[in-house]
């Protein structure tokens, strides 16, 4: 990757503070509420299928408005402050990349939106065996997952929210993603969800129940 220099954790006040965050769809059960405070490292959000992990990640990224609670990313509010959302890279699953573009175009657009137009993900794409000129409409599930992970890294954000980062990708790519996340452990806040056996050891795990959540920092 090229582009912005590595973020200094001290300079950026590298913290993700989640206070009593909850969300509820119309006629759906309450998701959350969730309270935790994360520093640099790898953090796992755990829970059964349907507990609302993906929804909570969307709330933390600013994509959804929680019905209550506050999110603070590096001292700023990504829910209400659009410009603060560039501090957070979010890889939802399934991804929401535009199917009428190819991967390179989608990444270039995201780089422009996040005011880092010189950002390029060619090196990582090569490691993931991902052809950048591939139209997203023709991409397989695994290729879309890789593209989604690349998209979350656009602009080298200090906070990464990764929903099932190892889902649907091949063994070689699993190793690449695992080593990438290991390399980010010291300098980024990475909050991820994972079903089954996790390829790396998280620093903390936060459990989300169907209608209540508990946090147990390990």
């Amino acid at each position, binding site marked *: 990757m090229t582009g912005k220099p590595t973020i200094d954790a001290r300079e950026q006040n590298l913290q993700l503070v989640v206070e009593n965050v909850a969300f509820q*769809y*119309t006629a*759906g*059960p309450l*998701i959350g509420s969730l309270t935790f405070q994360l520093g640099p490292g790898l953090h796992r959000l755990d829970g059964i*299928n*349907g*507990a*609302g992990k*993906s*929804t909570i990640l*969307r709330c933390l*990224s*600013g*994509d*959804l408005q929680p019905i209550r609670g506050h999110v603070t990313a590096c001292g700023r509010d990504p829910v209400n402050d*659009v*410009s603060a*959302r*560039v501090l957070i890279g*979010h890889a*939802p*699953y*399934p991804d*929401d990349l*535009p*199917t*009428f*573009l190819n991967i*390179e*175009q989608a990444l*270039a*657009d*995201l*780089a*422009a*939106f*996040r*005011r880092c*137009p*010189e950002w390029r993900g060619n090196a990582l794409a090569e490691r993931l065996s991902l052809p950048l000129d591939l139209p997203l409409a023709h991409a397989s599930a695994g290729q879309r997952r890789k593209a989604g992970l690349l998209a979350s890294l656009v602009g080298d954000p200090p906070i990464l929210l990764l929903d099932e980062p190892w889902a649907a990708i091949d063994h070689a790519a699993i190793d690449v993603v695992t080593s990438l996340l290991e390399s980010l452990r010291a300098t980024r806040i990475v909050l991820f969800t994972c079903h089954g056996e996790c390829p790396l050891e998280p620093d903390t795990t936060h459990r989300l129940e169907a209608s209540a959540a508990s946090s147990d920092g390990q």
Partner: protein
Amino acid sequence: MLVVTYGLASRLIDPLLRSLLVEVDLRAVSFVVLSVTFLAFAGRLRAILLPSNLSSLARQPVGNLELVFLTYPWATLLAWPWLLVVGFGQPALTVFVLASTVATIGVIGLCATRRGWRRLVWSSALGASLFVIDRHEMSAYPLALLAVTIGVGALETDLHAAFGEAPARSSRQRSERFFSALWRTGGSPLAALLRRDLLALWRRPGWVSRAWLPIVCALFLLLVSAHGNGNCHAACLDRGVLFLVASSAIVCVAVLSSIRHVQGPRWLTPDRTVPPGRRLLSLGLIAAAPCLPFIALAASLSAEPSLLPFSISVVLISLYRQLADPDRDVEIGMLLCSVVPLLFMTLLPVIERLLLTTGVLLVLLYLVNRQARRQRHASGTTGACASAAWP
């Protein structure tokens, strides 16, 4: 004897005859003729003129008379220029009312005729009446607009087929180089939004087929201004250019519709880091872009002071229209009806006109923003539902 008889008879018969003689009101006659024509074509008009949200009525077992009451209001929307002509009144009332009645009947005939020589006959009648009318002030523009709205509308199917839903493979390959270069330029967030919309318009070029209306209006306006037609001078041209700008609303909506279709439900929120205001600005710019040649032409032909706010209002109305119901196809009649009331502002003095257009602009900005917020909320929640466990 004969003289006496004639004298008596004339004294008796003349008053009787005079009392029977009715002064013919041409407007009333034309109204009756129009009503009969609507009645005669009611069945076919229903399918053409009913807005999509009332289309279920077409399947209801109602008789022709009831149907007239259902279709007549919508049909008169398409005949609004005729009402304008009658409403404003003209120096040569007889000529205008007759010709505009013929024109409106021609429009109805065109609506009710599918294809072939009958359509040609109706078009000829329409053209003949326009030829008579366009020698005079004002009525030429609404009637020309009416003619192209309905008459030339039949061409739209062919135009749409010609442009298709997507460009051919060869032209797509040619364009790849252009778009690749465009994406390599990097650029600002606004530039990224615009190039993304540009690609969407290239992928779904059906909006081009909607440009016939302002193109024909522009040609007509050029023709009238070049030949100094009749008594059509400054005020007449001012109204003409406003009609031209109003007619380009159909292109604005078609452009937004193409973008919506290609980009899907996230067309308003391409990324969570894009501020809503910036996205609305980019949509407004891309919707206004195809109208710029028409606005420039209008500005060159007329010194109408409210042209700029009116043009912005037209774009905002189109944006609001598309945001309010993004899945519905463009309806020319309804769209024009939302734009045309603004034209009545030209009857006001300049200062009041500018104040009013500014007020309308502010209200439209508020409405567009509110509608966009609703759409974003709806699409965001839908997207979340798709990926989350809860229905």
